[in-house]
């Protein structure tokens, strides 16, 4: 990885502009969770002209549906889910000032374009490393859509939450560059 950087949320445009693909970032502060069903509800609210239950300005949304917390733990296993299912909703939230998304897997060109235009980044967490990632989540609290169970929006307090920059604000893509570097086809 090119650089190791620590960042604390909320993020500014300057914070994300200095990031490059392949950078290893350790996040601190508050991040929000949201996946398929929660995203649908957020966008429905925007379409109806209503206020969102969370302010996404400067924030990061982590695409995760954690497993249930065991007694004494803030959260269960909590690795990323595949991001493309949120592609239909992400540009709208980026436009509203969301600065980052955490997930795994490729993004649609519209999302990458929105990141360039409105200055946001896509960060990868290690898929399938849910037990390890949970160690950097210190608190978890449901803030919206409790009825969605694992898909409810949670406010997470994280310490040194490890991610890798996959798409930066310049339109670069680690998936493309990484495969190009090691391809022997």
């Amino acid at each position: 990885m090119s650089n190791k950087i620590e960042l604390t949320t909320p993020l500014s445009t300057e914070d994300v502009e200095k990031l490059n693909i392949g950078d290893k970032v350790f996040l601190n502060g508050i991040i929000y969770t949201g996946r398929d069903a929660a995203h649908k509800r957020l966008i429905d609210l925007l379409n109806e002209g209503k206020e969102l239950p969370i302010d996404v300005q400067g924030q990061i949304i982590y695409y995760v549906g954690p497993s249930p917390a065991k007694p004494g733990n803030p959260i269960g296993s909590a690795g990323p889910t595949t991001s493309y299912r949120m592609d239909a909703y992400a540009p709208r939230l980026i436009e509203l000032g969301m600065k980052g998304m955490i997930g795994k897997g490729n993004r649609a060109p519209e999302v990458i374009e929105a990141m360039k235009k409105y200055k946001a980044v896509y960060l990868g967490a290690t898929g399938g490393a849910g037990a390890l990632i949970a160690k950097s989540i210190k608190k978890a609290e449901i803030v919206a859509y409790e009825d969605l169970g694992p898909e409810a929006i949670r406010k997470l307090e994280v310490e040194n939450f490890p991610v890798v920059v996959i798409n930066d604000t310049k339109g670069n893509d680690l998936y493309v560059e990484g495969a190009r570097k090691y391809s022997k086809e």
Partner: protein
Amino acid sequence: MFLHANNANNCLDNVTHFTLEVIWVFKTTKISDNMVIAPVCSMAKTGKDRGKAMREIHTDEITKVVRDLFIDANCNLGEDVLAAFDTAIEKDESPVAKEVMKELKENARIAREENSPICQDTGLAVLFVELGQDVHIIGGNFKDAINEGVRQGYMEGYLRKSACDPFSRKNTGDNTPAIIHLEIVPGEKIKIMAVPKGGGAENMSRVNMLTPAVGIDGVKDFVVNRVKESGSNPCPPTVIGVGIGGTFERSALLAKKALLRKIGDRNPDPDIAKAEEEVLERINKLGIGPMGYGGNTTSLDVFFEVEPCHIASLPLAVNVQCHASRHKEAII
């Protein structure tokens, strides 16, 4: 099932009833005003076990085994997969790939130590069950017993419930219904294999009805392309199950069954084994690497299962499995 004639008062006669394979012996007892008819034993009628009492297995035992298997499978990654992680850490040329593989190894260690799930996606509950034909299941409905085991495992093991209605997306709440593939086999045992299957990798799977003319080369190309197109989505390094032959649905089942093999196990047919190795090599030249960050470890193994098919067809299914290749089995 009951051809039992009405018996005289308080009779304790044993009455036999013949079905195709089994002789059932029933006892009628009078309890207050109700006649109760209950089977007291059953015997195999045919084959070498003729006349021998069938082995009885209670549904409670099945429930307990299913419960434990799903917790075990979700928290304890197989030694074969861990060994494949070590190989990747040693051999992958990419420093980032090595780092990711070390994280996955550490994740598996934490999960095992704390009995917590390896991945938050603890899957739909898929089971392969081999039911011995000389087993007599008592105590209730076989399918209900399995679903109860899934319910208990996912509730008591703090596993995520991921089953939902396809359209309303309403969660069923307890990860049932289980997906049960049942096969009747000789013997008096039940083998249960629990395969929690996550959604991310499953979404990258495909069935294709190929033209027979494309042959084995067409099969190889399709599998490699599927992995290429899946890119980083299914959490590489993946395990690729390939089902070839049968019918449309049979190929998919074969592909899923292929995932039960241990990393490094080759198909007994040397030609097919060679094809597996060739496809694995081609996949690992794609450069996708662990998590798609670039590297030489895109898949840990490729398993082909082959069966005869129709003269007009060449069914092919590719079932993609993430690196959390989870499956555990037990024999009752």
